[in-house]
């Protein structure tokens, strides 16, 4: 078998893996990143589809002051993003523009107003919902997130109100930001998230797709190593409790690559499968079963011959409260016209199934989403069509998220020089690309402390 030698081998070119690879290559480690797919980026990438540029996963990026920004800065790679400035909430069938700060309070005000109006029409009592009480409790929650560990976020809110629209607002926000329903995430995770993300601001999208950004990171790796695509890893070689290297398939040939350190960005489950489950203790395997509960989602891309929302073609983000499946939509081509062919428009909608405890039924999900599109966007039937449904089930190779916010695994494994990176190993309150980027920074620092380049 052909043999190669690197300081570091990274399996998987997602933002966690490629981020780690770029940071270490920049620091002088001879690094190989291997990717089984034919493109880099994993869920932080994009592809061409009928002339449109579609995201493979992450649609929006929070970048100002985040770890995602830091990975690109520290490795000297360009990160192209444009802001999607306006935020709207759709409640009770109407769109409300939100301020950059304090949108939660404004949302709850609107709920109160809508309930009052309903009461005027129907008679009876307004459904009690005290905004001050909820906001006060929310602020308390963000001060001491750990306190609410035992409750789901929905249960936490039920202490104060059972108003369905108020619950809907939170479910939509949590669903959009943390990709989880309010009943599938702990209150403490939501509060930690708000603390970590400093609210819902500076949403940006990559104007030409994230693949461009990830190729910039790949270039950094290539200055002191290699990035191989179309190269599935066959196994991680383990001996005497240490990882020795990997066997990877390249152009139909198996190649053995020895390394001081192995970093896996394919999720802890796949890492175990490659290294062999008998190399891991029962506690670690149990943690994998219990802590990795992937979130499922259906991403919907809608093509149209005129903007479906907002109808004037403005750049904006819409959070939809109380729809069947859709929790947020972004008119991608209104933010960046390059994402659609000339004269065409591209709208993205995020469709969340009712439970991520069981597999989704794609037919049911797509049927419900279609109804949402018809109900929410009057122009859809005449001017739009579903370009693509992209369903990511709980057992998908690339799920929406590998674990729920507030859960997940350590980046360490029972094998000393084998690390996991990616969104299965987030720190408290982190999710999505920033969770993955943070693991890249954390693991690359650990490696810099413990291993010197060029020793292999």
């Amino acid at each position, binding site marked *: 078998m052909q043999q190669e030698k690197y300081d570091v081998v990274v399996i998987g070119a997602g933002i966690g893996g490629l981020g780690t690879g770029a940071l270490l290559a920049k620091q002088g480690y001879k690094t190989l990143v291997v990717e089984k797919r034919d493109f880099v980026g994993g869920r932080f990438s994009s592809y061409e589809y009928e002339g449109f540029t579609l995201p493979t996963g992450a649609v929006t990026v929070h970048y100002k002051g985040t770890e995602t920004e830091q990975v690109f800065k520290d490795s000297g790679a360009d990160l192209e993003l444009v802001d999607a400035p306006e935020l709207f909430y759709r409640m009770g069938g109407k769109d409300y523009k939100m301020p950059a700060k304090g949108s939660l309070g404004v949302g709850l005000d609107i709920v109160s107003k809508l309930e009052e109006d309903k009461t005027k029409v129907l008679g009876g009592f307004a459904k*009690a919902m005290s905004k001050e009480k909820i906001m006060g409790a929310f602020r308390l929650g963000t001060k001491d997130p750990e306190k609410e560990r*035992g409750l789901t976020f*929905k*249960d936490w809110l*039920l*202490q*104060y*109100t*059972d108003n369905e629209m108020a619950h809907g607002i939170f479910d939509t926000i949590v669903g959009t930001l943390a990709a989880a*329903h309010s*009943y599938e995430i702990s209150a403490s995770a939501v509060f930690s998230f708000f603390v970590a993300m400093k609210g819902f601001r500076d949403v940006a999208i990559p104007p030409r797709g994230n693949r461009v950004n990830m190729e910039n990171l790949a270039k950094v790796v290539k200055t002191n190593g290699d990035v191989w695509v179309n190269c599935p890893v066959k196994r991680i070689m383990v001996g005497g409790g240490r990882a020795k290297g990997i066997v990877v398939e390249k152009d139909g040939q198996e190649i053995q690559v020895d390394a001081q350190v192995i970093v896996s960005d394919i999720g802890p489950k796949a890492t175990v499968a490659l290294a062999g*489950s008998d190399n891991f203790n029962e506690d670690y395997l*149990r943690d994998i*079963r*219990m802590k990795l509960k992937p979130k499922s989602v259906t991403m919907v891309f809608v093509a149209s011959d005129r903007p479906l929302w907002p109808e004037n073609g403005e750049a904006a983000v819409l959070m939809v409260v109380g729809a*069947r499946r859709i929790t947020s939509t972004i008119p991608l081509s209104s933010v960046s016209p390059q994402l659609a062919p000339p004269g065409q428009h591209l709208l993205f909608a995020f469709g969340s*199934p*009712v*439970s991520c*405890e*069981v597999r989704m*039924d794609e037919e*049911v999900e797509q*049927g*419900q989403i279609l109804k949402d599109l018809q109900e929410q966007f009057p122009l859809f039937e005449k001017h739009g069509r579903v370009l693509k449904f992209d369903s990511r089930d709980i057992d998908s190779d690339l799920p929406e998220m590998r674990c729920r916010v507030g859960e997940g695994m350590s980046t360490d494994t029972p094998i000393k020089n084998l690390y996991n990176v990616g969104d299965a190993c987030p720190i408290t309150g982190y999710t999505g690309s920033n969770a993955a980027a943070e693991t890249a920074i954390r693991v690359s620092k650990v490696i810099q402390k413990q291993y010197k380049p060029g020793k292999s």
Partner: protein
Amino acid sequence: MAQQKYDVAVIGAGLGGISAAALLSHWGYKTLVAEKRDAIGGRWSNYDYEGYWLPAGALALLYHGTETEEIFNEVGAETEFVRVPRVSYRIGGKDWEMPDKGAIGAMLDIIENITKEKDITSTFNAKKVTEGFHKGIAERDSLGKITLKDYFLKYTDNEMALGIFDTIANTICGAHSYEMQAAAFFTFLVKSRGFRDVSIAPKGNVANIENLAKVVRANGDVWTDCPAKRIVVDGGVAKGIVVEKNGQEIEIASQIVISNAGPKATVELAGEQKFEEDYLADVRLKLRPHPVTVCFVASDRPIWPEDGAPAYQMIVGARRITSVVPLSNISPHFAPPGQYLTFCFCGPLTNEVHMSPESEKEQILLDLKEQFPLFEKHGRVLKMVYKDVDDDLPEMRARCGEGLSTDTPITNLYNVGDGCSTYGYSGSNLATASGKRVAEAIRSSIKPEKG
């Protein structure tokens, strides 16, 4: 306003309300039960539909050795029940009859065989999971709040194995394994002695509850078509109720008010401002009704078991159906001559949101076609009953092991029914246990008025 006087006024003639009323009447309390519907029984009633005798709620229940039996015995009311002779499980598309003891272990063994047939490298270990099950039973009081699914994830992530527990949880508690606590599940299994002695009323539960209502009538009244308009509260004490009867409001003065309308409705009837915020928060938080769809299938021959034998089956791994009871095989009373009635209990994926009847229906129809080869040729859906999370008569008012106290912040006002918690209980026995508890509390603190 017309006025009347009773010792006890009971709102709602469900099993909890009638149980409390029957006990109290039997003990000498003059009792009125006011029911807004035109029939008594609530979810313990039956109705005629195209000649079929359909249950409104409870179907198969644990009777022997339960509070339900104690109440019927105490007041001398007759019951008619037949024991379902055969409980089987459908796993991997095959039906397996289970021994009375060690059924879980036997099922896990079956799964190990199926799994290894499919994948020789499978590491699924039935013995390990069975040990986990027994450990759960033994340590049920110290499991904390872990869900049933998470508890078994400690031992395995085999979908079929997790499916067994999900199916059992759904059948006995109307909840998915990820929506109920492991401790409540294990406690239920211990208290129900393994959920083996399952009884069905051959003429419907309404025939049995009617016997309890007779006991009430011997020392009081049961009014149907009489909605309660409000509960009269004065200085933190319940003084009676106002009901509507034949278009007239009547004030019923009573020493005690018992509500079987569910704690939420109780609060609305007494006025939200009469309750402190902690209690209202509990009502919101602890009453999490389970949605369910009950599908009645009519057929011109038995669709399962095809030999027409009485039986009961739990199905592991179907889309929605978790249990099936061939009702007319158990008692011909349930179907017109020459026709057959099969009951299918179907759980939507979550109890956190409203169900979508159209997608439930689609999925259940697919289940019927996939699970019962005779369905397409010989059967038809007679009726789908969707009980959503906000249904007035939900499958269960609270998750198994949760629920409220029978006491309320208002003196002399009690709740009964399945919104009240008795740890490890579910369904009918939850209702009768609460009725018995409240009746006994009243008996020990308040005497019936003479004359």
